């Protein structure tokens, strides 16, 4: 009871938490308002929502069977039946792109979540505990960052084999280090703040300070990092799949579709170009959302 | 008519922003006599620094807009000059010394290059000539061991030395007017006194006229010949420095004077008096006298805007207390 009044001397102790809650609510409202004012971010959000709907309902809305082979209908140009034409097995390109959206979205989100979780824990531990923990974690992060990301991911895929689960692992391994660095520097700043010192003076345990007090304060940053790491993960997955060490046929990832389509660039350019546009638009949309979130949540992170 | 180096009439600066225009300077008129030190004093947010930037033509564009009925610099009208004309004046005829000597010098260029740059800009001098002149200036502003300091980088100098270098930079083209914006606020007390002494000496020796911007009435008392007290973008009192301390006429000035700590007074038990309340938001000014919400002597009439009223000599105050029927409201002939 006593420590709240220390922190907010102008308020009666029983009012202080209510005051905090009020502030939190208005922070959220301001954020939402700032985000909604950003037109590009709203366009990005609309695109992503549409994409998620398409991905979830792909079996119902896609015009054809993604795996049906029709050798008499190979490499057709765009037509009324096949809006984006057919590939070398006579499969509908649009359908395959819609199914590919499932993989791209999952690949964008899951590894980002994993690397975010690892990065946040490592960053907070490193920043708050300092000393040897800090040294070890940061040297580990240095090493991860020194690996060219694509090569690191390729090595993981080589070792563990090319499948979706391993893509998650590879991308999480690539991504956590930079998250950890950002979270660490924020933790270092937060550590010196009065409310953390007050908690320390109260005898709050270290783990409670780290994950009960510091963690909530890095959440805005984590949200921004999350939204910006999704497009990155989508890019890496498509690159891996393009090089043949990612998603394996007959699954249809966008990168793989481009890779397969490039053989037929001359006869039917849409086969390779259309999935590339899908990647481009999705990555752009997530980048817009990420920029909008960053400006709304944490203007200091700008650029 | 006194021999004025600067004569400002009706200086008004407005900023256009998201919620309409804000008038940050409202109809300022004041003079700076040749070889005089004139103070601008007020709390932060009163518009002192904005006055300096407006005179220099350094108000951020395109949001800021500066207008004036007339600004005479040594008899020449400068208020109608375009950006190129103002640029030609800056550094040559009007120079400025800023508050933060730490950040006002470019960290990646040698001090002498920066101090001597106005000579290159305005007089097209070569490197050797500039270097020689900077050395002279360094000697004049009392930088010890000036030869070796020439090639120093800003971070290698102390705050006091940097401010001396800034003053050297300001005076290198022998300007008609030097504007010093809180030149000692960022320095420690001893250095503060040295810099102030230096500026006074330079005025006596070179005869530069100085506008001294500060929130510190102590500096005003020590340095200035005349004082303009600013509040919320307006001049509220204008007087000879002796008059001002002798007979402060605006309640705001009296409040400022009362909040100066005095060594003679017993400290025990009493908090230092300060003016209650805060400088108003310029976008939401109170009607009438801008100081009235904080004024202990506010009257019903204070809801109407007071004009500058002449007391005696050159002493004027913007307050209804002094607007007796026999005193004419002040116009532009102040």
């Amino acid at each position, binding site marked *: 009871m006593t420590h709240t009044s220390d922190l907010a001397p102008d308020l009666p102790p029983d009012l202080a938490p209510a005051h905090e809650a009020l502030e939190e609510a208005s922070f959220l409202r301001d954020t939402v308002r700032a985000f909604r004012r950003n037109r590009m971010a709203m366009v990005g959000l609309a695109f992503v929502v549409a994409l998620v709907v398409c991905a979830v309902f792909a079996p119902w809305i896609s015009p054809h069977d993604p795996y049906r082979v029709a050798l008499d209908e190979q490499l057709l140009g765009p037509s009324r039946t096949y809006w984006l034409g057919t590939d070398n097995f006579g499969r509908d390109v649009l359908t395959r792109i819609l199914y590919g959206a499932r993989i791209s979205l999952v690949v964008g989100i899951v590894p980002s979540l994993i690397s975010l979780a690892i990065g946040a824990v490592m960053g907070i531990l490193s920043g708050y505990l300092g000393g040897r923990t800090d040294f070890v974690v940061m040297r580990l992060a240095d090493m991860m960052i020194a690996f060219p990301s694509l*090569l690191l991911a390729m090595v993981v895929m*080589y070792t563990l084999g090319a499948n979706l689960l391993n893509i998650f692992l590879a991308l999480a391994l690539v991504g956590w280090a930079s998250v950890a660095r950002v979270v660490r520097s924020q933790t270092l700043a937060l550590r010196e703040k009065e409310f953390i010192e007050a908690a320390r003076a109260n005898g709050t345990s270290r783990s409670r300070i780290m994950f009960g007090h510091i963690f909530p304060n890095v959440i805005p940053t984590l949200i921004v990092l999350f939204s910006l790491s999704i497009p990155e993960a989508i890019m890496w997955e498509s*690159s891996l799949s393009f090089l043949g060490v990612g998603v394996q046929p007959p699954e249809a990832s966008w*990168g793989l579709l481009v890779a397969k389509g490039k053989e037929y660039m001359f006869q039917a350019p849409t086969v390779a170009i259309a999935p590339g546009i899908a990647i481009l638009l999705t990555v752009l949309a997530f980048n817009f959302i990420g920029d909008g979130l960053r400006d709304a949540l944490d203007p200091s992170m700008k650029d | 008519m006194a021999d004025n180096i600067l004569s400002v009439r009706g200086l008004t600066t407005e900023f256009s922003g998201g919620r309409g225009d804000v008038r940050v300077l409202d109809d300022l008129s004041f003079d700076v006599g040749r070889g005089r030190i004139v103070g601008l004093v007020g709390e932060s947010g009163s518009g002192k620094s904005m006055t300096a930037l407006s005179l220099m033509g*350094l108000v951020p564009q395109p949001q800021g807009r500066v207008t004036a009925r007339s600004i005479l610099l040594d008899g020449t009208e400068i208020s109608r000059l375009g950006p190129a004309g103002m640029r030609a004046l800056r550094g040559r005829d009007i120079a400025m010394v800023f508050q*933060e000597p730490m*950040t006002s010098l470019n960290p990646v260029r040698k001090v002498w290059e920066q101090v001597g740059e106005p000579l290159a800009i305005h007089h097209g001098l070569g490197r050797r000539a500039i270097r020689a002149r900077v050395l002279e200036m360094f000697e004049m502003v009392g930088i010890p061991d000036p030869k070796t300091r020439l090639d120093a*980088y800003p971070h290698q100098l102390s705050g006091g030395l940097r401010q001396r270098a800034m003053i050297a930079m300001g005076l290198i083209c022998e300007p008609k007017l030097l504007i010093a914006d809180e030149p000692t606020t960022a320095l420690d007390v001893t250095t503060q006194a040295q810099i102030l002494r230096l500026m006074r000496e330079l005025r006596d020796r070179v005869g530069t006229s100085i506008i001294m911007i500060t929130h510190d009435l102590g500096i005003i008392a020590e340095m200035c010949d005349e004082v303009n007290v600013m509040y919320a973008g307006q001049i509220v009192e204008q007087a000879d420095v002796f008059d001002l301390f002798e007979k402060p006429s605006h309640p705001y000035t009296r409040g400022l004077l009362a909040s100066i700590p005095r060594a003679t007074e017993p400290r025990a038990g009493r908090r230092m008096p300060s003016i209650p309340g805060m400088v108003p938001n310029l976008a939401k000014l109170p009607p009438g006298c801008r100081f009235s919400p904080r004024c202990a002597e506010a009257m019903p009439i204070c809801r109407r805007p007071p004009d500058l009223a002449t007391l005696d000599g050159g002493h004027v105050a913007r307050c209804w207390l002094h607007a007796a029927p026999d005193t004419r409201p002040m116009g532009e002939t102040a």
Partner: protein
Amino acid sequence: MLMFAVRRILVSIPVLIGITLILFVMLNVVPGDPIALMMKEHASPEVIARVREQMHLDDPMISRYFSFLWNAVQGDLGNSIKLNRPVTDLILKAFPNTLLLAVCAALVSWVVGIPAGILSAVRRDSFLDRFFMGFSLLGVSMPIFWSALLLQYVFAMKLKLLPVSGFYGWQYLVLPSIVLGWSSAGVIARLTRSSLLEVMRLDYIRTARAKGLRETGVITRHALKNALIPVVTIMAIQVAGLLSGAVITEAIFSIPGVGRITVSAISSRDMPLLQGAVLFATVLVILGNLVADILYSILDPRIRAQMRSEAS
């Protein structure tokens, strides 16, 4: 300066050792017998046993790691299984091609990115600014392999201005350099812009204006040097991005460089070659970071002074 460089190199040695360890462990825990996997059914058990013997695959991992490390220090990265030639030779033969590609791409990205960033900052919020920033966002959001295909399609297949792929002369470098340079041009343009805008807010810019300097003079003489410090350092760090990109670019344009070696090492499961190529690339990245730090200290006298006092 020399002291600083030496110290900085010493600091990166543990990182390098850690990386070799991670790399070695990752590549050597491959499930199944790598030799059998690679040679499939062509090899008799005796041949497999001999190769295993040659590669010391039956020794404990730790001793294999140390001999790998020791050999690597001496420049011996083992033999390629597929090509049966020293990995070091293969990499050194391919590296000049990768280096040429990377340098050309870097030049493209600077020549495009820095002026675009400066113009965007100077004409902030103008049409030009929006155009460049939109373009750079497009550059960052486009997968390299896809923009490569597009350019190939338009300039090589349709317009027949440039060769599609291969590596027989300067014309063959044009498209790959543009493809690889474009993506980092976007990053550099954005960084240049934000860094210049940041600097233009600082006090000493106001001082420069107060001297009567023209706006172009303010930018070229006072703002640019400070603003480009972070840009120059990112250029050196760019090495990592360029190497990742080179893997894809070389694969698409059939340029015989280190990137293509890496891809083919994976598809033929040539572990020593993959290990060597990745290690080589990582050393390049660390060198790039080293150069970045040293450049930083040369460009910024404050850091220089700080280092001098630390070193003494």
